[in-house]
Structure formats: structure tokens, C-alpha cells
């Protein structure tokens, strides 16, 4: 039990234990808080295991197989187990850590839920932790895909946690279908790759790639299909539409699944198979394109949303775009680095917004008002009521806006610098860089807008409600504090050398990423250029923040029920560029038409019901009717028939 593989395996199986326990022992599940304690306990143990696995792990990859699944003559087609290397242990800690913090936080956030619902919530949470760990630790594509689908299922279940609300149920179904569109691509890619390579195992395929034994023909299709899976799961354009709707789930779920862990699975998948994507630079360029475009598109949308969680949702889409831009540029470590720092500050932002919503919701609840507790137009001036939340969210805001020394600055700057550096080879990347900078400006702008609308200015919650606003309990602010510290100092993970750092993350991830870096090397800018780039990035962030604060505080904001409807470009932005409407016309309605007219009325009712089922019945009845005509009931007819038969038999015998 001293190799990191076994420890990681243990950490992976602990949440599964909690899930099975809560599923089977249903009195425990229905008891609510005890179920939550069980889940949190197992999750804490998993976090301990993850940290231990990291302490034990060296630069080597450890594989620990649980059992051989789908055995074949030439070795098993798929195994279930763990592959503990630097990339997966890092993700393991991230998943276990954020999962633990969110589970603790949920105890406060969902305190008013009925016990049975709370037990159900924690059962799903345990299942999610198990599934996500299974995904990141997967030693082969098959287990990765199973984990991939399981986290999708958990996402569906948790978005639809308040399934009595039709919006939540619809959002859950939408998230399921849209990501499924990408998952089909992933499955096709995996199967094609398995056929080409003869194995699904990461290490085996890597060996083939190293020996130049993997046929390159058609590899572009394979990597493109795998990338499709990442597009769906990580909400990249054009499959980004599900993530904002997923905000119908409880806020801690948004923080865990739809900000920190599951949606970053796409980035993780690309870095995990970086040696494969290396061989197809065209697809990698596409990854960069889509990433940069998504970052910019989502950032513009985040600037006009009035629902606090939707701002953060679009912000997540935008930041995921950054990560993909990093990967597409060849700066894999930067992509993972941004993944990690983003997990910290975005989880903090979501949990902080949860604390705000909690306060406003309780205020409205106390006065029996039916105003929207998530609408920022109903907030404002909350700083004096929620000081801890305010200061911690401010840290996250500075981090995401790229203000040094907070974590987001380092990771975002690395990605932009990499795009700039790549531009020397391919001038197209200068465009990506420019898009990234504009998106960075917009990021700072909408975050300042969010902070100003929520915490500064006049309070718009309402006269009677104001007295009920209060800070969240310590069980919610505690996790916020931990994430706040991580958001503030997370940049130290990969402190660049000119600041006296050792680029620790880069060294840590070297064994996994080195192959990619070697094939698609990147000369990062140094010296003066580097300083100019950093200066530019910081300037953009500061200007964005100032502009955001000024623009928001400088005008009068009306509470939601007094606000006039949007007009002009604001309306276009508010309707999300009409992408949802486009999908409705192009995909949803034709599908519904096809299902209703062709498949339901045509195939099912026409062919199956009428022709096959009722047709058989009609045929037998017709034949029976014909036969029954012989039964006249007339004795004379029978006698004649008998006579004819007898004569026929006699004539046959006599011959």
C-alpha cells in the first residue's frame, strides 16, 4: 500500500463506498443530515488519500489494475484501474478537494431542504466524486468514457435536483442532450482509435506513437472526434448552450460540476492525449480557434446578464475557452495551470454568489416576497451585510481579471504569452492573442459589473427585506475562506522564473507533457517582450475593472420588476445572439416534427400498429371468415359434401 497507484485507487473507491452505503441503506439516506455527514466523511478521507498519493508519487507513472475487463487473446481490451501519474494525481487532488469543500458548504446552503432530498443530494454528490475520479484516473479510453458518461449523468441528476420546477427539469434534459451530442463523437473517436491502435490503453498507445507504429492515416478524424467530446463537456462553441441553463441546479453544484471539475474534463482529456493531438496540428489549431472564439463570445454575453449565476456561467464558458486556447497553442501546462487556478477562483465565485443568493433568498422568504433572489438588479449594497463574502469574492474577481499577484494573472498571462509566441510562426495566432486580450478586458469588465451591482451602491432588495439580510453561517464561509486563500496564492504553483519561482507545475507535469512539448515546441517570450506582454495584460485587466465599476456605479439600476425591457444590441446579447432560437429552429423543431409526423404517426402508428399488429389480426379474421362460410348449418349441404368426399375416396380406392 505504499505505491501511489494503490493509494489513488483507495481514494477513488472511497466515494463509491459512500454512494453504495447511501443507496442501499435508505433509512440513512432519508435521514438527511446523517447521510450528509457520511458523504462528507468519505470525501474527506478521499481527499486525504489523494494528497497521500501525491506525496508518494514520483515522476513515474504508476498503474494499478483492479480487474481485467473484456479479456481477449491478445491481452484484455480494457482494464479497470488507476493510472497515477503527475497529471492525474493533480486532478485527483483538485476533484477531491473541491468536492469536499462543496459538500461541506452544501450543508449550510441546503439546510432548509427536506431530509430525504438532502440525502438524495449527497448520494449524487458521492457518485459524482467517484465518477470524476474514475475519469481522471482512467488508464484507458474505455474507463475514461465510462467516467465521462457517469459525470454527465450526475450533472443531469444534480441540475434537476429541484425537479419539481419545470425550468430545472428542462435544463437538466437540455444539458444531457447537448453534451450527449459531443459524447457520441468521443465514442466514435475512441472506437476508431481502438481499431487503429489495437488497444485502448493510454500507455500502450503512447508506446505505439513513440515507435512511430501508429498509422497516421485518418488520425485527424479520430482526434477531431475526441475533441468533439471535449467540446460538448466543456461547453465550447457551438455546444456551449447547456451550461448557462445548468445554473438551475443548486449553486454548490454549479461550483463543483459546472465550474471546477466536470466541465474541465474536456481540457483534461486533451492534455491526457496530448501526444495524439500533436500528430494532427490541424485539429489542434481548430482547438485554439474555437477556444479563442468561445472565450470572446461568452465574455460579451456575460456583460449583460442580470442573473448573478448566469454571469458566472458565461464567465466559465469564456475561461474554458482560454484553457482550450492554451492547449491549442501548445501551451499544455498553461492550460492545466489555468484549469487549476480557475477551479479555485471560479468555485469561490460560485460559492460566494451562493452565499449572496442564500442571504437575499432568506430575506425574501422572511417577507413572503416572490422577487428573484438571483437577479443582481435586486441586490446592491450588500457589502455591509455580507462583508466576508464580499472580500473573498473580491479576491476571486481580482484573480479572474488577471491582477497580480492573484492566481488567475499567472495562468491567463501564460496562455496569452504562448499565443503571442506562436504568432511568430503562424501569424494567425496573433489574432488569437488579440481575441484573448479583448476577452480579458471583457472579463475584468463583467466581473467589476457583477461586484458593483451586487455589493456596492444603493441596496435595491426592498425596504422590508433589508433587515433580514445577514452573512452566511461559518459552515459556508469556511470553504469560501479556503478557496480564497487558494485563489490568492494559487499562482505560486507555477511561479515564473523571472519572479524567483521554479515553474513548479511545469516541472511536475513534465513527464506527461514533455512529449507534446518536444513535438510542438514553443519558444516562450523572454526579457523585454515578456515584460511588455505582462504589462499589457495587467493594464487591460485594470482598465476593464475600472470601466466596469464606473459604468455600473455611474448609472441608476432599477429593481427587476421596475426595469424597462432591453432594446437594440443589449437585447441581442440578452437573447444570447439568438443561438438558442437557432437551435430551436434548425435542430429541435425538425427533430420534433420528424418524431411526431414520421416516426410516431408514420412508422409507429402506421407501420407497426396498423400494418404489423392489426394487419395480422385482420388477416386471421379474414381467413376465419372464409372458413366459416363452409359451416352453413344446413344438413343437406353437409350431406352433399360428405357424398362428394366419399365418392372421391371411393374412386381413389377403386382404382
Amino acid at each position: 500500500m505504499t505505491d501511489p497507484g494503490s493509494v489513488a485507487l483507495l481514494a477513488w473507491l472511497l466515494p463509491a463506498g459512500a454512494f453504495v452505503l447511501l443507496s442501499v441503506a435508505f433509512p440513512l439516506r432519508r435521514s438527511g443530515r446523517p447521510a450528509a455527514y457520511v458523504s462528507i466523511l468519505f470525501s474527506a478521507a478521499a481527499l486525504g488519500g489523494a494528497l497521500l498519493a501525491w506525496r508518494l508519487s514520483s515522476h513515474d507513472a504508476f498503474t494499478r489494475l483492479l480487474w481485467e475487463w473484456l479479456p481477449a487473446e491478445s491481452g484484455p481490451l480494457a482494464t479497470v484501474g488507476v493510472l497515477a501519474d503527475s497529471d492525474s494525481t493533480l486532478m485527483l487532488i483538485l476533484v477531491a478537494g473541491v468536492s469536499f469543500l462543496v459538500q461541506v458548504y452544501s450543508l449550510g446552503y441546503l439546510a432548509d431542504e427536506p431530509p430525504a432530498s438532502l440525502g438524495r443530494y449527497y448520494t449524487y454528490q458521492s457518485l459524482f466524486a467517484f465518477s470524476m475520479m474514475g475519469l481522471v484516473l482512467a488508464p484507458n479510453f474505455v474507463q475514461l468514457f465510462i467516467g465521462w458518461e457517469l459525470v454527465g449523468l450526475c450533472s443531469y441528476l444534480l441540475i434537476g435536483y429541484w425537479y419539481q420546477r419545470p425550468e430545472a427539469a428542462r435544463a437538466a434534459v437540455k444539458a444531457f442532450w447537448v453534451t450527449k451530442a459531443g459524447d457520441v463523437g468521443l465514442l466514435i473517436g475512441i472506437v476508431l482509435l481502438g481499431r487503429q491502435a489495437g488497444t485502448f490503453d493510454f500507455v500502450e498507445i503512447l508506446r505505439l506513437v513513440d515507435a512511430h507504429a501508429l498509422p497516421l492515416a485518418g488520425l485527424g478524424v479520430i482526434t477531431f472526434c475526441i475533441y468533439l467530446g471535449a467540446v460538448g463537456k466543456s461547453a465550447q462553441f457551438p455546444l456551449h448552450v447547456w451550461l448557462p441553463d445548468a445554473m438551475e441546479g443548486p449553486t454548490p453544484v454549479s461550483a463543483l460540476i459546472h465550474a471546477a471539475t466536470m466541465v474541465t474534463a474536456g481540457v483534461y482529456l486533451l492534455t491526457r492525449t496530448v501526444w495524439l493531438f500533436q500528430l494532427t496540428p490541424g485539429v489542434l489549431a481548430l482547438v485554439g480557434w474555437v477556444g479563442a472564439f468561445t472565450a470572446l463570445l461568452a465574455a460579451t454575453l456575460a456583460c449583460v446578464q442580470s442573473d448573478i449565476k448566469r454571469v458566472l456561467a458565461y464567465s466559465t464558458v469564456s475561461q474554458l475557452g482560454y484553457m482550450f486556447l492554451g492547449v491549442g497553442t501548445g501551451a499544455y501546462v498553461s492550460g492545466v495551470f489555468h484549469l487549476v487556478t480557475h477551479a479555485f477562483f471560479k468555485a469561490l465565485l460560485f460559492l460566494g454568489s451562493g452565499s449572496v443568493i442564500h442571504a437575499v433568498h432568506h430575506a425574501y422568504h422572511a417577507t413572503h416576497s416572490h422577487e428573484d433572489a438571483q437577479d443582481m438588479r435586486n441586490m446592491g449594497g450588500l457589502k455591509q451585510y455580507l462583508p466576508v463574502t464580499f472580500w473573498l469574492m473580491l479576491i476571486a474577481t481580482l484573480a479572474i481579471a488577471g491582477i497580480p499577484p492573484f492566481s488567475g494573472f499567472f495562468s491567463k498571462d501564460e496562455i496569452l504569452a504562448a499565443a503571442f509566441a506562436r504568432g511568430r510562426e503562424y501569424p494567425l495566432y496573433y489574432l488569437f492573442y488579440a481575441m484573448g486580450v479583448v476577452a480579458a478586458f471583457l472579463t475584468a469588465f463583467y466581473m467589476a459589473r457583477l461586484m458593483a451591482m451586487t455589493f456596492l451602491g444603493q441596496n435595491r432588495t426592498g425596504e422590508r427585506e433589508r433587515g433580514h439580510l445577514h452573512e452566511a453561517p461559518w459552515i459556508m464561509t469556511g470553504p469560501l475562506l479556503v478557496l480564497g486563500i487558494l485563489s490568492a496564492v494559487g499562482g505560486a504553483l507555477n511561479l515564473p522564473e523571472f519572479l524567483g519561482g521554479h515553474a513548479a507545475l511545469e516541472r511536475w507535469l513534465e513527464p506527461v507533457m514533455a512529449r507534446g512539448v518536444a513535438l510542438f515546441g514553443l519558444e516562450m517570450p523572454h526579457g523585454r517582450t515578456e515584460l511588455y506582454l505582462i504589462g499589457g495584460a495587467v493594464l487591460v485587466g485594470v482598465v476593464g475593472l475600472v470601466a466596469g465599476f464606473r459604468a455600473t456605479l455611474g448609472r441608476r439600476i432599477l429593481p427587476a420588476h421596475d426595469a424597462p425591457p432591453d432594446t437594440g444590441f443589449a437585447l441581442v446579447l440578452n437573447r444570447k445572439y439568438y443561438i438558442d432560437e437557432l437551435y430551436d429552429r434548425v435542430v429541435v423543431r425538425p427533430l420534433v416534427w420528424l418524431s411526431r409526423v414520421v416516426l410516431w404517426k408514420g412508422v409507429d402508428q402506421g407501420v407497426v400498429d396498423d400494418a404489423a399488429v392489426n394487419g395480422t389480426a385482420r388477416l386471421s379474421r379474414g381467413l376465419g371468415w372464409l372458413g366459416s362460410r363452409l359451416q352453413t348449418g344446413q344438413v343437406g349441404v353437409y350431406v352433399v359434401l360428405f357424398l362428394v368426399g366419399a365418392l372421391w375416396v371411393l374412386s381413389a380406392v377403386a382404382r
Partner: protein
Amino acid sequence: MGLQAYLTLAAVLFAIGLFGVITRRNTIGILLGIELMLNAVNINLVAFARFGPSVVGMVFTVFTICITVAEVALGLALVILIFRVRRTVVADHLDLLRG
């Protein structure tokens, strides 16, 4: 008068009986037709017994007559019962078993 004459008579009688069974609409008429056919058989049997080496045919004829009596008694009883229930003895109307 050889065997052939008797056999011809029996055949003619049988054909008349059969004709009666097929064409008669009255149930009693049908029973009468059946009687004719049975007696045609009796003539056959007796004729073969007279001209052949064995007298088995005679014995058979006695049996047939006995059974015919029983059959007619049963048949007429049925006809009376049918008449009581249906108020008719016309065979064409007795088509309860029509499909």
C-alpha cells in the same frame, strides 16, 4: 332372375333414398330416405347370402333391422323434441350451427 337384378334393385333403392335425404326439407322425410337406404343395404346382404356360400348376410340383415328400429325410434324422438322447442321440423330452418 340372377344376383345382378337384386343388386340393381338395391342400387336404385339406395339412390332413391339418398335423393330423398338430400332433397327433402322435412326432417321426417329425411328419416324415411335413410330407411330406404338401409333397406337397400339389406337387399344387398340378403341377395349375397342367397347366391353366395355363406349365410352371414342373413344374420347381418336381422341385426340391421333391429338397429334400424332403434334408430328410427331415436330419430323420431329427436324430431318431436326439436318440434317442441323450435315449432318446426324443416331441416333448412334448423341452422343453429351456422358459422
